[in-house]
């Protein structure tokens, strides 16, 4: 391939060189079990503790409030199921645009007698505070609203939601998987009781993540069978991945402002170019209240998988909310909840920028995109003059 342009950083990121270097010794030299009492074990445990501190620092938590997991999916499952199990009130509220690992977890609980309600969002994907307040009028155990959405990048007013929940004595959990890379989070001032994150969205390895549980919060043990993670999540500690995750968290904090400034400029450039050069497009999500790395457009009259495939042939990696690409023929419920039409949902394409994205990459993308959209529209039976 002449070019390989990766614009799918919301799916996963590459592992940064610094992270990879930090991990390597824990495969080869320091391979001890972090639970062992001997020197190799103690070395491993010390490295894990250092990583725990780095991950905690990223969200202003204490190290003993961080529990390592296999990723954000596990963290989401654990907090929601574990908090409900320990609560006398069997009622949970989630937004309509949560990740499937929240949606399918609450659907599962719903089949087992837990009352589940969904908080509406506006056309930008921002949750309705009046709707949240009205649904909180009944006794509720837990509210879970993601910090930033994976499809459209919309960032919620987490401070406000946290304050409302704390005042009402309801637990507040947030899936911050897509947010921790570019948003400074503070679990203390934001009144967050549970927070999920993942290593491979912040240039760390896949297969590792963390759940923050505020000290004193009642959440049932997730995995039984050992004393690891203070007895709450058994299983041999994945030392190399945790070390990598810790290093990734450290770098994220260190470089956040410089990365954000550069990526935000590129994001705004891409939005401007697409809107300026391609007619009948719609920017999905919120124009300003969005993470720096996300651009999501619908192209009227054409379907997303075709766009994805043609871009892929040119060496450009993107993703789509189209039904045709879902494997189940269900289109994006996130865009549907935001009131986007069926046609426009199937014509949606997500470009998620990253630390290695350059302006040259975007210029190459834009040239290809203009041509691809034009060609697909020529062979589409749908005109592009309709309502957007």
């Amino acid at each position, binding site marked *: 391939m002449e070019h390989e342009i990766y614009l799918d950083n919301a799916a996963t990121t590459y592992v940064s060189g610094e992270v990879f270097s930090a991990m390597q010794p824990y495969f080869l030299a320091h391979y001890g079990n972090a639970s062992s009492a001997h020197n190799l074990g103690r070395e491993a445990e010390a490295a894990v503790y250092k990583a725990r501190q780095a991950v905690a620092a990223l969200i202003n938590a204490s190290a003993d409030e961080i529990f390592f997991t296999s990723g954000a999916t596990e963290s989401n499952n654990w907090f929601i199921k574990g908090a409900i199990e320990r609560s006398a009130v069997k009622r949970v509220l989630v937004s309509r645009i949560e990740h499937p690992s929240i949606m399918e977890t609450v659907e599962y609980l719903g089949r087992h007698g837990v009352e589940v309600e969904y908080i509406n969002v506006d056309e930008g994907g921002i949750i309705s505070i009046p709707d949240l307040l009205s649904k909180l009028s009944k006794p509720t155990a837990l509210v879970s609203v993601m910090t930033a959405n994976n499809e459209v990048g919309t960032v919620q007013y987490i401070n406000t939601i946290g304050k409302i929940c704390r005042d009402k004595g309801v637990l507040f959990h947030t899936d911050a998987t897509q947010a921790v890379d570019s948003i400074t989070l503070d679990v203390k001032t934001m009144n967050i009781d549970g927070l999920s994150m993942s290593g491979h969205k912040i240039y760390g390895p896949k297969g590792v993540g963390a759940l923050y549980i505020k000290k004193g919060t009642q959440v049932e043990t997730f995995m039984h069978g050992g004393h690891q993670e203070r007895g709450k999540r058994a299983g041999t500690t994945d030392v190399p991945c945790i070390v990598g995750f810790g290093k990734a968290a450290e770098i994220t904090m260190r470089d956040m402002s410089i990365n954000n400034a550069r990526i935000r400029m590129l994001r705004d450039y891409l939005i401007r170019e697409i809107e300026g050069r391609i007619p009948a497009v719609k920017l999905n999500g919120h124009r300003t209240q969005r993470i720096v790395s996300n651009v999501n457009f619908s192209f009227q009259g054409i379907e997303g998988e*075709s766009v994805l*495939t043609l871009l892929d042939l040119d060496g450009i990696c993107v993703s789509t909310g189209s*039904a*045709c690409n879902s494997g189940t*023929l269900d289109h994006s419920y996130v865009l549907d909840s935001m009131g986007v039409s*069926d046609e426009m949902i199937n014509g949606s394409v997500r470009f998620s920028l990253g630390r290695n994205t350059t302006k040259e990459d975007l210029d190459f993308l834009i040239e290809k995109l203009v041509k*691809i959209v034009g060609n697909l529209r*020529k*062979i589409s*039976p749908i005109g592009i003059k309709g309502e957007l």
Partner: protein
Amino acid sequence: MYSDKVMEIFKTETGDSPKNAGILKNADASGQVGNARCGDIMKIYLKISDGVIIDAKFKTFGCVSAIASTSIACDMIKGKTIEEALSFENSDFVKALGGLPAVKIHCSVLAKEALEAAVADYRKKQAKLAGG
């Protein structure tokens, strides 16, 4: 995920000189099926002379397999009588495409339905001509 044949057709039809995609000028009939929700809308145009399909073109809003299915259908029905064209099963299109992923088989069904809709349109117009 897709066969080489599907990709080859898709690339041709979405390129600068499509083979079967586009409007058929002076078409005798056309048929459109599908809806935006499932993500596929297909339209087939037919030019028919003495009961034989002498030309066929399509326009498709849809994914790779939707575009390839309508294209292969146009290829296969050209030069055939209406009856011969209608006798094709969707599985014949799938076979000619070198297979389709299981979740995409419905694209071949839609291509057959678009052809049936175009033939129905043709017959309606013929009946009207005969009646008028």
